[in-house]
């Protein structure tokens, strides 16, 4: 059994379109929030792992070489993780691995980005596809690729555009209770208002799509003895897993995330979970686009393939439901591509620690945070528990 590791401190900056800070200063802000949350000083950190979204988004190659000294990295072990949109998740896992390996007692993991320093963020996105095959940007842009996923999901299982609007309402309204969320909608935001939003890439309307935010997130992981020294509540890592699938492989069904199902099965095994729908008390999925939430429910094994929409419509994942999901407002309300996959795990940990403020859900002792990246390929998961 791997050694016990806990998340002892979390820092999430405001997620907004313009930060008047350099990239290192933005990461430093998240690091200071996390140290304060953990009641720790810079010198308590033994190693650092930095995640950042694709370099062409910000135009700085190996940005950890510039960011490192601003987050206490001078003279410390430090390296960078990068797996596209899931980078926040894989950086969180790398932070956990640094401690669980026994090499370090306390590790600071950070991830984020300043996409708005790029005049056309979509230009950065269009470099995600193989230059020769994607040359005419046929599969370019996250929006169109996910739109293809959404359309496939609707036509395969018979759901309508109303499902997207329902998800948009749940998460956009939930964001009202999250001080760091980017988009705030009026309290009376409803399905009709969501359905009235302009179509961007059928079936995705503006209401179904995430905003472009800048933010940074920091999570501090500690081994058992260092975690016991922390005075506040901590969130114990029960299971962590990241699995990848191909892009255009044989018999791929873009609406059936088999890599997520494999990652979930492995993470549940490590966490000793046999029935996730019953045993989990809180979930944060990477809902960059509304239709993805029910698809990720299926990948997480909360229901059978095709039943994600019905699970959502049952109200079970609403505030007050048996398994609330994305009470932070999710990626649909704030998307800093570099930070979002870590923020999903941070929100799950905050719920377990009882430190989620206005968005706190009662008695959460087991919570899961998800993240995806690449061409709908990489899925990262971390499960937190209240007890070691």
């Amino acid at each position, binding site marked *: 059994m791997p050694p016990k590791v806990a998340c002892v401190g979390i820092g999430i900056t405001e997620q907004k379109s313009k930060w008047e800070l*350099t990239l290192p200063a933005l990461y*430093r802000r998240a690091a200071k929030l996390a140290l304060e949350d953990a009641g720790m000083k810079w010198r308590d950190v033994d190693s650092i792992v930095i995640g950042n979204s694709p370099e062409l988004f910000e*135009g700085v190659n190996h940005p950890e070489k510039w960011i490192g000294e601003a987050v206490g990295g001078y003279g410390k072990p430090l390296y960078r993780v990068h797996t596209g949109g899931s980078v926040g998740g894989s950086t969180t896992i790398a932070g956990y691995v640094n401690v669980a390996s026994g090499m370090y007692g306390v590790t600071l993991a950070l991830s984020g980005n300043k996409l708005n320093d790029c*005049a056309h963020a979509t230009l950065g996105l269009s470099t995600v596809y193989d230059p020769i095959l994607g040359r005419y940007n046929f599969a370019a842009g996250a929006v169109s690729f996910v739109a293809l996923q959404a359309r496939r999901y609707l036509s395969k299982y018979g759901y309508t555009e109303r499902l997207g609007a329902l998800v948009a309402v749940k998460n956009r309204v939930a964001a009202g209770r999250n001080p760091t969320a980017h988009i705030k909608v009026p309290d009376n935001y409803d399905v009709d208002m969501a359905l009235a939003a302009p179509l961007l890439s059928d079936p995705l309307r503006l209401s179904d799509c995430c905003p472009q935010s800048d933010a940074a997130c920091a999570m501090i992981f500690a081994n058992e003895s260092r975690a016991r020294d922390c005075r506040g509540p901590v969130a114990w890592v029960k299971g962590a897993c990241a699995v990848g699938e191909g892009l255009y492989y044989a018999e791929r069904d873009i609406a059936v995330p088999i890599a997520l199902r494999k990652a979930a099965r492995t993470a549940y095994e490590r966490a000793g979970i046999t029935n996730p729908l019953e045993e989990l008390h809180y979930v944060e999925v990477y809902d960059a686009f509304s239709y993805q939430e029910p698809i990720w429910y299926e990948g997480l094994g909360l229901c059978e393939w095709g039943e994600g929409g019905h699970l959502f419509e049952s109200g079970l994942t609403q505030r007050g439901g048996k398994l609330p999901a994305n009470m932070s407002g999710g990626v649909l309300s704030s998307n800093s591509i570099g930070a979002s996959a870590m923020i999903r795990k941070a929100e799950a940990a905050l719920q377990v620690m009882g430190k989620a403020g206005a968005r706190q859900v009662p008695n959460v002792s087991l919570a899961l945070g998800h993240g995806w990246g690449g061409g709908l390929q990489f899925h990262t998961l971390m499960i937190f528990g209240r007890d070691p």
Partner: protein
Amino acid sequence: MNEPRIYENVIRIPYSWTTGPVIGAFLTALRDEKKILGARCRECKKVWVPPSDVCAPCNADIEPGDLVPVSDEGVLTGFTRVAHELMWRPADPPYALVLIRLTGADTDLLHLVKTPSSLDRLEMGARVRARWKPERTGLITDIDEFELTSEGNP
């Protein structure tokens, strides 16, 4: 083996990087006052030129209030005469990239020496002075280059 097929193209992405208050103040001082600012760390008192957002050894924040002017004169603490053709070069060869310890600074500034008369007399410890561009836009290249001053070397 026939000629392998190659697809040539260019990735062209415009950026506009946020300077933040400290680097913003440094660049603004270049543009408006032909002044070079350093950051004095509140804890170790070291003057970092050019300034960044943190004094890393002390892990102390640096804010605009910590900025102090330093001289635009100093001595060479390093140089390299660049001969090879670089795709992205600040000037046509021959030019030199140099490290300068400005009077009042505790670290070295990277910059250029271009004029032939200066290039011939490059040596460690040589005294240099900034030559400012008449039109300045708030970039490190508002200083066109550093010239060796004629007062001879120590």
